[in-house]
């Protein structure tokens, strides 16, 4: 662990991950190498079984690779899940407070930070609402605030908007982009939605399936802010989709 800030936020070097043993052994990732730049918005894109969530778990430190190394260069990774995964027995504010309590931050300061984080995701004043009293989009914003409460330099997002309706998702793309710009956080965003990846990413890493390998990396040279329905986004999305279909098609035989 180095305290020196390099331009690389995450160094993934020759990472493989197996699950199970013997004949039932499944390889989720095969020799994946990838550098994530500091402050970058990186999208991991792939079909089912490409190991994108596995890779994210490795970066977030929830899991260890079978081979190779994952180096987060001394940075702290926060995680956000598809289901908002808020603790249902706590209020919105209480959920955001948990990572602060785990780090031993005192009560007065916790309250202040919770309010600040809620304001960041435009939910100021809703600290006392319970998860079931909020809509899906609002819950995801609380979840985002909770990830930031971990003072994460790297934000790992596992299909965070997958379960939302199109209009909410669209607005949350804008919100996420704004917060990313304002905070300078490094985002690693897992999705299987090509347009979403093109809408958000600086780069798109296309993973092949079973086992997951890096198939191709796309640079997204479309100026921000972008709109998901713009012609340039649609154009690149078509290219990426064609390539993704090739990868998926190799499993049909």
């Amino acid at each position: 662990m180095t305290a020196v800030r390099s331009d690389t936020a995450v160094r993934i070097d020759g990472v493989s991950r197996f699950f199970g043993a013997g004949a039932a052994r499944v390889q989720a990732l095969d020799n994946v190498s990838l550098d994530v730049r500091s402050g970058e918005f990186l999208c991991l894109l792939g079909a089912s079984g490409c190991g994108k969530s596995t890779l994210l778990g490795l970066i977030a430190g929830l899991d260890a690779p079978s081979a190779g190394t994952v180096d987060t260069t001394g940075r702290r990774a926060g995680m956000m899940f598809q289901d908002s995964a808020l603790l249902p027995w706590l209020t919105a504010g209480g959920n955001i407070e948990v990572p602060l309590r785990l780090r031993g931050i005192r009560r007065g300061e916790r309250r202040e930070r919770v309010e600040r984080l809620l304001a960041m995701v435009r939910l100021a004043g809703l600290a006392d609402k319970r998860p079931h009293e909020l809509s899906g989009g609002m819950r995801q914003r609380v979840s985002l605030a909770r990830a930031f409460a971990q003072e994460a330099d790297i934000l790992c997002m596992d299909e965070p908007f997958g379960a939302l309706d199109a209009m909410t998702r669209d607005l949350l793309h804008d919100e996420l982009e704004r917060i990313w710009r304002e905070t300078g956080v490094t985002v690693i965003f897992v999705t299987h939605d090509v347009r979403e990846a093109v809408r958000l990413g600086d780069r798109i890493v296309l993973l092949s399936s079973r086992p997951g390998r890096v198939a191709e990396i796309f640079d997204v040279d479309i100026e921000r802010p972008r709109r998901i329905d713009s012609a340039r986004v649609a154009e690149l999305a078509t290219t990426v989709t064609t390539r993704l279909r090739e990868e998926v098609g190799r499993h049909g035989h």
Partner: protein
Amino acid sequence: MATESGISTQLRGRSTDLDPETGLAVDAALAGLDALDIPTVQRRPLAARAWAATWPKIGALALFLLLWQVVVWSGWKPTYVLPGPGKALSEFGSRLGTNHFWDALARTLVRALEGYALAVVIGVVVGVAVSRSAVLRTAVGSFITALQTMPSIVWFPLAILLFKLSESAILFVVVLGAAPSVANGVIYGVDYVPPLLVRVGRSMGARGFSLYRYVVAPAALPSVLAGLKQGWAFCWRSLMAGELLVIVPGHPSVGADLQNSRELLDTVGVMASMITIFVVGVLVDTAFNIADQRMRVRRGLVAEGTSAVRAARGGRGRGMAGGGVDPVGGSGDGTVPHQPVDGGAGGADGGHAGGAG
């Protein structure tokens, strides 16, 4: 709807920034969506809820008393063997004015609380240990359930040989009766904690004890509460069986009174004692239900005074609108596993006790 207007007021006080391409305010759209999306909960006034919770109980009680009276009127048994509800209730009422009644009740309740407290401590310790250790689970996991299904009455011969006719004999059986339910509640609760929530806890940096404190324990609470409730039922049953069998001289108790009345062929007295036992049962059950209801309302599993199943069926238009029930919270908390319940222990207790006396 108070909730909804409250939230939209809070949402309105935001700065605006415009979408550079469309010129539309992003956060105005977001605020609008929030206001539309927010699930609305309709709350009925307190008086209406109280009435809705009370009248079916009063009705059921009235029906039961009526049936009882009808049987008495039918002349099936002479009234000195089967007195009517009026006589039994008035005997119960007149007992309320005697010191003896309150001394006996106090003795019984102290025994119950002591035994229950000890059972909860033992049950929680054993439950946590078993849920954490695969070896312990294999070793004693099924014994706990076996112990739970054993009618507590069968422990008394051993208890009396070990402790004689003493308070200790009663305590021994009460603890053995209640602790397995509590332990099973803890074990099932921990087993059914949604893995996603554990992953969330770990991603926030919780490990070991802090993971238990912030995630596992609160997630297991519904099942633990179910175990505590069942544990109380076993505790109360065991205690009543014990008080009928183990009568400690100079220690009046509800069970001793009941046994006493039986020996004096005083059916009215027997019924008055049984009413006492029933009332205590109802009061404790109500306390557990209030705790359970509060927990479910807080977690969004139930919209005030109704079950999640009924809300999902759209019963009377109450409940949530617009995907209000969190699927994670729902599946996570809703899964209160059914514990094995002994089918006949309660009845067996009563039967054996009557025969033995």
